[in-house]
């Protein structure tokens, strides 16, 4: 029996399944979206992210399980009140090519009960300005570029001041500058107290934004929670990465005191965070050992052991797992850090929104990259 929805959750999708003919689009999907936070659905194409969004607005109903948004069932008679409080940007911009920008947004304004007139036009202008599309509002949308369409779709989604933003690949087709602007806007939306649920397969943009992530695959949620908490579950012990030309010596670190596990990537596999091959100052290829230790104080002893054995050490870096590391670790173990073979393990419980310094640092990384 799923637990009752708590007051600080805007969305509670509990054990939802949905089939289309023989295709299982969602299977036992559970998603909880805390109010005022950014939740990112991560997963490959076909993971069920778009179907999950359709469930949340009530555009589709579940075959099994329950969906509650703002405390009501969106596919039931009260669905209208849910949809009125949602702003949606679909994977395709869903705009009318034979209308200009103004008419597209006026149409949305009327459907969302804002009416017509000068005051609405002013709000339309504000929304368009926010996404830098105001100069093109008099043009037919059919002549817009992909990026312009995405901007207009974003402007439409915030026009009525929604409490919940549902964004399906919102930066798809945008140039890097626009993408960063959109991500900053998404962050500002939560600063205003709104809730955001975003689907993406771009791990870097999720890295900069996510207060919590939900990793999906085959229509189900593998794990969810704050990135830092999930990282602690997958890498519970301190970890360092040591680079050296001598991979054999690095593997031998497994016998050192306090070492829990050593995983060595050979010279051909060892890469920097940016994907370049690791080499020393003479250009010789390097191997990298990911060494889990029982406590951080072991690191000097490990380095001394290598140096005393005449093994050159190129670098020693504490391992701070990125969302990408986490994503692939989750998918590799199918959601269970304790028992990789058992994919049926329940996801970890929802944890509080991640406001730790490391999370904040991660969030600022996207903006830094843009600069």
């Amino acid at each position, binding site marked *: 029996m799923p637990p009752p929805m708590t007051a600080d959750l805007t969305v509670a999708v509990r054990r939802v399944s949905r089939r*289309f*003919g023989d295709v299982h689009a969602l299977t036992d999907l559970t998603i909880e979206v805390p109010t005022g936070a950014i939740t990112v659905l991560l997963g490959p194409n076909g993971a069920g992210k778009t179907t999950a969004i*359709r469930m949340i*607005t*009530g*555009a*589709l109903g579940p075959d099994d399980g329950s969906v509650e948004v703002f405390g009501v069932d969106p596919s039931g008679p009260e669905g*209208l009140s849910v*949809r*009125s409080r*949602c702003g*949606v940007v*679909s994977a*395709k*911009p*869903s*705009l*009318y*090519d*034979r*209308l200009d920008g103004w*008419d597209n947004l006026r*149409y*949305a304004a*009327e*459907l*969302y*009960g804002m009416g017509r007139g000068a005051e609405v036009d002013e709000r339309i202008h504000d929304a368009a300005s926010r996404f830098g599309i105001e100069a093109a509002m008099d043009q*037919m949308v059919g002549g817009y570029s992909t990026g312009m369409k995405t901007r207009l779709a974003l402007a439409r989604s915030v026009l009525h001041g929604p409490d919940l933003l*549902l964004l399906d690949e919102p930066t798809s087709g945008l140039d890097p500058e626009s993408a960063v602007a959109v991500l900053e806007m998404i962050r500002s939306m939560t600063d205003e107290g709104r809730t955001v649920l975003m689907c993406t397969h771009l791990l870097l943009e999720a890295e900069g934004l996510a207060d919590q992530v939900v990793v999906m695959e085959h229509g189900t949620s593998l794990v969810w929670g704050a990135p830092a908490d999930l990282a602690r579950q997958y890498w519970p012990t301190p970890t360092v990465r040591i680079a050296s030309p001598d991979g054999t010596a690095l593997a031998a670190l497994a016998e050192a005191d306090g070492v829990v596990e050593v995983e060595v990537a050979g010279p051909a596999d060892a890469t920097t965070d940016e994907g370049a091959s690791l080499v020393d100052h003479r250009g010789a290829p390097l191997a990298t050992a990911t060494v889990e230790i029982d406590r951080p104080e072991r690191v000097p002893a490990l380095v001394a052991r290598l140096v005393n054995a005449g093994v050159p050490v190129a670098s020693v870096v504490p391992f701070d797992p990125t969302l990408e590391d986490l994503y692939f670790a989750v998918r590799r173990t199918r959601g269970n850090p304790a028992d990789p073979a058992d994919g049926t393990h329940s996801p970890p419980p929802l944890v509080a929104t991640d406001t730790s310094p490391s999370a904040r640092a991660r969030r600022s990384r996207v903006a830094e990259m843009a600069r």
Partner: protein
Amino acid sequence: MLSNIDWGRVRTVARTDLKQLIQARDFWIPMSLLGGFFFVVIPLILLLSITTIGANDVVAQVSQTLEVLPASAQDQIQGDTPEGRTGYALAVFLFAPVAVVVPLTISTAVGAATIVGERERGTGEFLAHSPAGVREIYLGKLIASLLPGYVTVIIGFTAYSLIVNLTVGNEIGYWFFPTPQWWLMILWVLPPFLAICLSLVLRLSAKVSSTAAAQQASGLISLPLIMIAYSQATGVLFGAGAMPIIVGAVAWVVAGFSLSRGLRSVDRSRLLGLAAGA
């Protein structure tokens, strides 16, 4: 059935669809030509050839045809000259299909693309996530499909009336068109037939996978309806007394039933292109 409907949203959906239709020159130019051909060109040529040019063989042929008309219809034919009587009969009795074929063709073409078109363009996703109810969307699209056909009839009917009065009316000595039966057909009999046809076409549009399939399949639906409407319209024009009113009343009842079925048949998943089992 129609309770709790936000008619403001219905108007918004209809108005937006019509606005897009106006932008679609590739649609309305051929349709305007169709209306112009049936309502202006053909009647003008035929009636002028009878009344002005004096095509005796045509007059003779049509006069023979008039013999087979019901007595009630023959009694209505006015005019003192063969040309005048022939022109009157052509104008009043034999152009009924014009008033039926044109609006049904235009409205069917609009309606067939309306829901499946939203899916094909991806805009169905926007509507599915919006607060607009599916019944409001359905009714908005029904109105947006019905109006182009019916407005064409009104404009075409006005032009046709002028042509008839300027050609045959001058021959007879006074302007006689539209006759009461034509008023009844345009205002009472034609609208429910349009509604019946569109309720079926919109349901079809929600179910098929492409606009092309919708256009083809809607032809199968609208063709028999056009034939039925044609026969009923002809009967209305030939008939007298309560006949047109009865035909119209029955059509309205059928239209009401068909529309209520149509309202129930559309759901949000159809806007997304996710019909049951798809």
